[in-house]
């Protein structure tokens, strides 16, 4: 078989229609008689609702209906959480429209249904809601003390405590022993600030209730999950709901959820019997879409004087916000298996406390648990290197898993199938010019230059390709991790591929076409990829966790394999040969040792005609396959950042950023490059720019892009990217996930670089984002607390 397509930097099939404005986002959809929704949201972070007077709103021109929590109390159920991380996990009821109490500013208290979006918006101000304000708890560490409760229905802010202990799990030694016998013990606390997944397309929903089957268009990553949750929550048979994700403008985990607004739009449409549309404003998106990160991480790392790590103890406070969203409770657990990272730690314990506050609820955000873990351990390795006076790369190398030790079972119980940390690091060093930059750093320190230079290192791996269903079961997740695909060879010889994953910018149509073109020997252009509509793609687990290629792509290949097997039967029949004598190359079956052959297209046409087929052969060249991965995928890499800190202003600049990522076999280098660039941008954004800030009363201060600083192209450096290729051994192509790698790796690289630049001036730590004012304040504080001038 040729491999003409795999590895080829194909331009994306998707781009022409996106670039030329022929896209169809949910908000572009207009149906006859469609009504418009606007939400009335609580201005208070915690309050009892004592009365909701909708009379003036109902009388407002164009208003068709107003729904309050009381109106829908019997039908709305609760926004579901499908990840009870412990058997005794506690969660408050989460009605889509608040009934008695609101627990964060932005929570929906009523919904206007009107003939125009303007009429709906005007009526929002006419709904008179009476609130009795309740005390708010905004700070995560304070919430853990239970002095103020985020919900009056709960007696504690603690939702669950989840523990992993390598001594108990049998995957390593007990942590106590390691800490007690530590020659060197490093203790640090890190703050993962709250971030907002600032996808470009705000969320939008259209529901058409006018036919037998209710249809919902929604800007989501997970149409299949939304469909199931709508059915389970609102008591509609699954077969009566069709969910379509049309063009979706980014998600980053922020659309890996099912939202109150989806339930509300469906309830409203069902009630008025007409199509309804809801499109959020950017302010609503920032305020009431789910947020990410938001953890306090307390770590203890024990090591020998030679720099061999002997144990790691992690205590997490994880901010759930006001409610448990679909999978928010499990996000920190996804990181729990990654704190040991690429290293051979003999002992490990993690305790995670999931805690409620009066903020927007949290959920997946690019990397989901793994960036937090990677940040913490990569910061700790630098801290240990400083403590021991050792080069941070040398320290890492002493502890990492060597190439010849794979497959390697880690202290967290995962089996890493492959990796070559030495090769990725060597290549990164070559691209970076490490020694020259270290020399320049020394010169700048000596001359007391106002601009100091730091080198930030991050050697990372991550677990992605979610996920083996048995593992998810062991983690109490409410579903499997398989993926589904169909491959159909049409009578013309063109191929239709149906995938269960749901793209929102990734380029699946292109990559899947490449996979199938190679597998079936058909031209790239002759492959059509269908997705994102539960009526077309009946089964799927959708897109998140860098799973599409390593799980969904493998399902496509498995389905294509089945088609080849089917076609072989027909080919043997048509050529009057034995199946064992056939070989399939470049889209043709040929009889070994002869010049006799028949193409897949000819077989497809013959199968369609069905005039001359083997007895009992089903006349189609269609196949279904469901692929359940046996293991996660473990991409890894080495990221090096040269960071300049202007000590006069505190400004941080990225002078050079080198990353060498190992994502196994690459299907499309252009798409991989794009994923790496975008991932880096979001990781750098956490290090330097973004933070969701609330005031003491519970109002989101960063409620627009004026204050929530998403960097744009001028704020980011040129990246020097490289790759090593260590194929995964657990899938047929040797591919690994790439969607989150850049985000996971880059944050600690930047912060390590900032600290490396100013540590000699007495600065010990700087909270993210490392804004100029924070860096300057840290420098000033170091001066007064006796840091070296």
């Amino acid at each position: 078989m040729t491999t003409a397509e795999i590895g080829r930097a194909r331009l994306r099939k998707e781009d022409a229609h996106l670039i030329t404005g022929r896209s169809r986002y949910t908000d572009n959809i207009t149906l006859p008689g469609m009504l418009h929704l606007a939400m009335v949201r609580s201005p208070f972070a915690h309050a009892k609702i004592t009365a909701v007077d909708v009379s003036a709103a109902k009388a407002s021109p164009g208003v068709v209906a107003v729904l309050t929590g009381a109106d829908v109390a019997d039908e709305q159920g609760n926004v579901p959480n499908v990840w009870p991380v412990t058997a005794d996990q506690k969660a408050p009821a989460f009605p889509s429209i608040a009934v008695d109490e609101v627990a964060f500013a932005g929570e929906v208290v009523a919904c206007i249904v009107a003939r125009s979006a303007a009429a709906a918006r005007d009526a929002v101000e006419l709904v008179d809601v009476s609130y009795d304000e309740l005390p708010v708890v905004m700070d995560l560490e304070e919430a853990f003390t239970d002095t103020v409760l985020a919900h009056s229905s709960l007696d504690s802010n603690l939702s669950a405590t989840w523990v992993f202990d390598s001594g108990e799990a049998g995957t390593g030694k007990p942590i106590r022993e390691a800490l007690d016998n530590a020659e060197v013990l490093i203790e640090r606390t890190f703050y993962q600030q709250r971030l907002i997944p600032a996808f470009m397309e705000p969320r939008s929903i259209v529901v058409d209730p006018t036919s037998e089957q209710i249809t919902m268009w929604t800007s989501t990553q997970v149409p299949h999950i939304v469909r199931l949750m709508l059915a389970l929550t609102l008591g509609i048979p699954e077969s009566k709901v069709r969910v379509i994700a049309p063009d979706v403008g980014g998600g980053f985990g922020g659309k890996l959820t099912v939202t109150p607004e989806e339930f509300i739009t469906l309830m409203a449409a069902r009630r008025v019997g007409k199509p309804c549309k809801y499109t959020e404003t950017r302010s609503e998106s920032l305020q009431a879409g789910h947020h990410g990160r938001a953890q306090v991480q307390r770590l203890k790392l024990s090591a020998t004087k030679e720099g061999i790590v002997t144990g790691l103890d992690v205590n997490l406070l994880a901010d759930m916000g006001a409610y448990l969203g679909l999978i928010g409770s499990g996000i920190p657990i996804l990181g729990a298996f990654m704190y040991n990272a690429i290293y051979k730690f003999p002992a490990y314990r993690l305790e995670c406390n999931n805690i409620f506050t009066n903020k927007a609820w949290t959920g997946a955000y690019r990397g989901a648990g793994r960036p937090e873990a990677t940040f913490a351990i990569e910061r700790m390795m630098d801290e240990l290197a400083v403590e021991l006076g050792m080069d941070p790369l040398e320290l890492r190398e002493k502890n990492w898993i060597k190439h010849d030790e794979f497959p390697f079972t880690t202290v967290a119980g995962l089996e890493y199938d492959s990796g070559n940390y030495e090769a990725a690091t060597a290549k990164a060093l070559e691209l970076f010019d490490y020694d020259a930059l270290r020399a320049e750093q020394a010169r700048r320190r000596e001359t007391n230059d106002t601009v100091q230079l730091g080198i930030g290192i991050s050697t990372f791996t991550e677990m992605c390709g979610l996920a083996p269903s048995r593992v998810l079961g062991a983690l109490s997740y409410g579903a499997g991790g398989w993926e589904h695909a169909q491959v159909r060879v049409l009578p013309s010889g063109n191929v239709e591929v149906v995938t269960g994953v749901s793209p929102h910018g990734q380029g699946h149509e292109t990559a899947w076409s490449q996979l199938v073109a190679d597998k079936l020997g058909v031209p790239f252009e002759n492959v059509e990829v269908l997705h994102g509509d539960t009526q077309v793609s009946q089964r799927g687990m959708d897109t998140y966790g860098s799973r599409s290629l390593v799980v969904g792509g493998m399902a496509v290949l498995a389905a294509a394999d089945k088609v080849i097997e089917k076609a072989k039967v027909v080919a043997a029949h048509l050529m009057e040969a034995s199946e064992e004598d056939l070989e399939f190359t470049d889209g043709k079956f040929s009889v070994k040792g002869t010049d006799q052959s028949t193409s897949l297209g000819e077989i497809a046409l013959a199968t369609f005609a069905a005039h001359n087929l083997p007895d009992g052969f089903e006349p189609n060249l269609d196949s279904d396959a469901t692929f359940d991965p046996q293991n996660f995928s473990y991409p890894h890499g080495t990221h090096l950042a040269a960071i300049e800190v202007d000590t006069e202003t505190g400004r941080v600049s990225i002078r050079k950023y080198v990353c060498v990522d190992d994502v196994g076999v690459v299907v499309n280098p252009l798409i991989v490059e794009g994923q790496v660039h975008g991932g880096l941008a979001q990781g750098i954004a956490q290090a330097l720019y973004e933070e969701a800030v609330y005031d003491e009363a519970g109002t989101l201060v960063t409620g627009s892009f004026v204050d929530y600083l998403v960097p744009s192209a001028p704020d980011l450096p040129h990246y020097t990217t490289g790759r090593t290729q260590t194929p995964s051994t657990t899938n047929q192509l040797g591919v690994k996930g790439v969607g989150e790698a850049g985000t996971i790796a880059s944050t600690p690289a930047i912060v390590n670089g900032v600290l490396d630049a100013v540590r000699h001036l007495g600065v010990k730590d700087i909270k993210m984002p490392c804004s100029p004012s924070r860096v300057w304040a840290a420098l000033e504080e170091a001066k007064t607390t006796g840091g070296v001038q």
Partner: protein
Amino acid sequence: MIPSAFDYAAPATVAEALDLLAAAGDDVKLLAGGQSLIPVMKLRLADPAMVIDLGRIGELSGVRDDGDALLIGAMTPHHQVATDSLIATHLPLLAKAAATVADPQVRHRGTFGGALVHADPAGDLPAPVLAADATFILAGPAGERRVGAADFFQGYFTTAVADGEILTHIRVPKYTGWGAHYEKFTRVAQQWSIVAVAAMVRVEGGTIAEARIGLTNMASTPVRATAVEQALAGAPMTRDAIAAASVHAAEGTDPASDLNGDAAYRRHLAEVLTRRAVIAAAGL
């Protein structure tokens, strides 16, 4: 992002606009480039009953030579200010400051006069205009009125423009041959200034004969760094002398604290950025 309903008029002349303004009562807003007004209306932070659009009044746009000054129409877009050849020759400070406003889209829609009347303390045009001692020409029911820059900016988003008046032109004295620099400090490219410094210097031989310095976002209005200007007058054109003078940059300022930095940080930035701005303006 839908504003409240409002009435709209688009007059063709200043006289017509003044009549409409007089008839509209209190609850009226003048629309220039709309880069601030439209967003606040969409957020319903402003809901005027009437909006008078000045965009069709041709006489309000453009730059012309007016002897010892340039006369800049209030409706001249930032992009034109940033690229106009008269401004480049006689008022390079204005060109440099205008080029830092927001992004290209905003610079093509947003206007010089609109930004000045909006009087955002973090806006980039007020400080250069103050440093240049510009004169604001206002049209009103009783005729024309002129206000100096020192009296024009009165507080947060507040200017000397009275009800019923329209800013028509800004008359800015020429500073031909002066060195100029606008040093803007932001966290991301598309952001209002955390602090910025507008500096002009006239150099004679190896000496700074005269300096004019305006500070952005160091108080509720733009402020002149008078103490620095005095210290620089007659000072040698050296980095040390400029640094010594810049120590006074924050004197008399009253900066706010926000997510981008507290008042102490802003005072510190004022000093650093003043030094850098003057050094750049002097061509050192």
